[in-house]
């Protein structure tokens, strides 16, 4: 469990690299910091408030305030793990989920409003949904299956992504100029580290190193392998060439799709889920690029679609003989698929409404988008006063304000 938590924490910088490689160099630091920043603000909001809202005792709709500022969260066991560790593990999920959204709105958002947005989102959208599914809320009562966060993490983030992309509008150059990835190796690095971290994400969700963890682990290994292979085939059939960005995307899609199912389906079903999920996401990516929706890094296609397919296939392929609490459609229980569909639809609706409300309110207080001219210069310089790869020509040292002439002369 300890190591699973560390692995999931690593996913957030990994995501930062996955995303940062895909944007233009002039906004790459900003994109990276949209993920890393989540480690700060959501990482702080979670123990202070978010955990309590998600896992505190409360109503079926939301937790309470009994664990605010970690009150009553100690080393005593909660289920099979110490309560404190459970809280930390769940915190890593909150952090990475908030960071996922950033992919839809890169290269155009002011940094501080963005941080406020994801902080609020983690409290007002993520925490309730986590409560519904894992915190004893109404979706868990209903019997929705979500092993490691297909609905809570990926569908909610995917929905927030599309809402945010629509509300904030496209980048000024979108569909006008070619916006190319500045460093595909970083994207591949990110996907490799994401895969590695995802073993903690799925494997750790059994909350013990037992048979279910093994199953989740093995599914987390072979589903992306299947997605990868299918994606290569689709690429080769369509263009005669397999792309590296495609491979990296396929890994993520396979991981997303297996997430809700990892501990509930047979390994062969896991392979099938990975293979099947590649198809809608593949065409989703193609289709999105023809629209005006500047979901810049295809969060919707990868996490939204991948999450939905995974959640529904969980309802089809879950097997009690492999540790699932209920069987899926294929094993004689068609109602489970209905329950899954309900969960998907409700989470989409709630996340969409919540995201829109937060963005709208924030927008009342301060502009969320940067000025058009700043977009042209790039967000690294305008938002952070830095360049990702500075060469230092023409850079003139500014003497710090406090350094008087005497201090200078002393040199």
């Amino acid at each position, binding site marked *: 469990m300890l190591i699973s938590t560390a692995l999931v924490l690593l996913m957030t910088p990994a995501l930062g690299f996955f995303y940062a490689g895909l944007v233009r160099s002039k906004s790459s630091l900003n994109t990276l910091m949209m993920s890393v920043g989540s480690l700060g603000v959501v990482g702080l909001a979670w123990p202070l408030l978010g955990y309590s809202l998600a896992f505190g005792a409360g109503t079926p709709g939301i937790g309470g305030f009994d664990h605010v500022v970690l009150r009553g969260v100690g080393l005593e066991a909660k289920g099979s793990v110490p309560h404190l560790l459970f809280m930390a593990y769940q915190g890593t999920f909150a952090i990475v989920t908030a960071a996922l959204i950033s992919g839809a709105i890169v290269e155009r958002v002011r940094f501080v409003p963005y941080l406020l947005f994801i902080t609020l989102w983690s409290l007002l959208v993520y925490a309730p949904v986590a409560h519904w599914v894992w915190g004893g809320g109404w979706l868990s009562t209903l019997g929705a299956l979500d092993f490691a966060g297909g609905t809570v993490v990926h569908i909610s983030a995917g929905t927030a992504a599309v809402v945010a992309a629509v509300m904030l509008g496209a980048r000024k*150059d979108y569909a006008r*100029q070619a916006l190319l990835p500045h460093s595909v190796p970083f994207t591949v690095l990110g996907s490799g580290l994401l895969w590695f971290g995802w073993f903690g994400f799925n494997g750790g969700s059994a909350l013990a190193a037992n048979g279910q963890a093994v199953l989740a682990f093995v599914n987390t290994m072979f589903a992306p392998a299947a997605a990868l292979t299918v994606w290569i085939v689709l690429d080769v059939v369509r263009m005669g060439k397999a792309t590296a960005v495609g491979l990296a995307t396929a890994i993520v899609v396979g991981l997303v799709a297996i997430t809700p199912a990892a501990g509930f389906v047979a390994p062969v079903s896991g392979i099938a889920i990975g293979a099947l999920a590649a198809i809608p996401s593949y065409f989703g990516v193609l289709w999105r690029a023809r629209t005006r929706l500047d979901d810049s890094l295809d969060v919707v296609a990868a996490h939204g679609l991948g999450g939905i397919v995974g959640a529904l296939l969980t309802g089809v392929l879950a097997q009690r003989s492999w540790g699932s609490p209920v069987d899926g459609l294929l094993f004689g229980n068609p109602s489970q698929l209905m329950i899954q569909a309900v969960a998907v639809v409700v989470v989409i609706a709630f996340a969409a409404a919540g995201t829109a409300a937060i963005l709208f309110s924030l927008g009342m207080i301060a502009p969320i988008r940067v000025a058009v001219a700043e977009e042209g210069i790039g967000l690294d*310089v305008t938002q952070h*006063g*830095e360049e990702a790869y*500075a060469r230092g020509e023409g*850079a003139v040292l*500014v003497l*710090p304000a406090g350094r008087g002439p005497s201090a200078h002369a002393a040199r």
Partner: protein
Amino acid sequence: MKMVVAIVRPERLTAVLEALFQADVRGLTISHVQGHGGEIEHVETYRGTTVKMELSEKIRLEIGVSNHFVEPTIAAILSSARTGEVGDGKIFVVPVERIYRIRTGERDQSAVTPVATTESPDS
């Protein structure tokens, strides 16, 4: 023959290329440069170090043309590269004595004429 050297903003490059192609200018070479002019400097900070950046990114185009192409080339660049803000760049016209096409060894006029086009030799 002349060499038209233009310094333009990176974000206008696509428009400039389009304008040049429409003016039937099809041979050109570009490079990344950094320029200093009247632009506002920006400040960057790395830990305790604050620096003023005196140079901004530009694109340099180098276009060898025969004489009667000089005007259209300049016109195309002027119209497509302009934003009206300080920092739009400059165009320089430099005399060229000879041009060779390396592939064929052809010289001068024919060296800069795309194979499909014909034009009067007036350089």
